[in-house]
């Protein structure tokens, strides 16, 4: 399988797998105040912490899922021993990965919910989107190099 994939496609596929895993990790968390021992609160008042992954959010989850599928497509085709080749997959991987980096970075900065904590899943997701964009760019370069 690896022989049929270019280095860039392998990098993008690894990034896609990492992003898929990251999407199930906590991205946003809310921490409650800690209370001195002995103090009791009514049942409805929570003091613990909660965390949500990106699936609980908005359209970002759908966008990242599309990015994962496109970035993993060459590896999935190689796994299935399919002979189809899509000429624009590398460019699509680069574009979607690059825009994904912008969207996750914006989510972590300007779009982040007030009063919530940034969890490690979001940072792993940002890194994975970067890896996908780099893999797509590398695969594009390899395609151009192969045509000369």
């Amino acid at each position, binding site marked *: 399988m690896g022989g049929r994939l270019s280095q860039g496609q392998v990098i993008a596929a690894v990034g896609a797998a990492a992003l898929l895993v990251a999407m199930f990790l906590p991205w946003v968390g809310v921490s409650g105040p800690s209370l001195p021992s002995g103090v009791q609160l009514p049942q409805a008042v929570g003091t613990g912490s909660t965390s949500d992954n990106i699936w609980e959010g*908005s*359209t*970002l989850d*759908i*966008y990242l899922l*599309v990015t994962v599928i496109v970035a993993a497509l060459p590896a999935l085709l190689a796994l299935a021993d399919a002979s189809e080749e899509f000429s*624009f997959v590398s*460019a*699509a991987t680069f*574009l*979607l990965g690059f*825009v994904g980096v*912008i*969207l996750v970075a*914006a*989510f972590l900065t300007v*779009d982040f*919910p007030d009063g919530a904590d940034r969890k490690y899943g979001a940072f792993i997701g940002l890194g994975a989107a970067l890896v996908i964009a780099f893999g797509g760019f590398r695969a594009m370069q390899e395609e151009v190099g192969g045509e000369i």
Partner: protein
Amino acid sequence: MDANRLSQGQLVAAVSAIALFIISFLPWFGISGGVVVQGVGAVGGSENFSLWESENPLDIYLLIVILVALVPALLALSGGGGDAPLAPFATALLGGVGTLLILYQVFDTPGDLDRKVGLFLGLIACAGIAVGGYLSMQEDVGGERY
């Protein structure tokens, strides 16, 4: 500026991008409700949110789509067309994914808000950008610009 410098696909994408930018300021989501207060009567109210007011990364994504759709047209109009073979593909791809994301919002609105006119007009405009990008790709292949 001479609009004849634009290909049909670039023109469709650019007009749709301008339309999407204007539409983004219309109401996309809304919340409505009324409460009957004793002694006061019905206290009702509704509030609408434009694309920029709703807490959603869709606004940043659609801004990127608008820019990607407009830049090739602006470059062509200014006469500095340059060589950007990826631009029609980027317009078609990002416009297509944008259409998919807006369609998702039509069926699954954030926080169970009401759907407003901007959401549906935005869907049409974003689909227009994708079609314009696709037409540009076809024209480039036909004209052997690649």
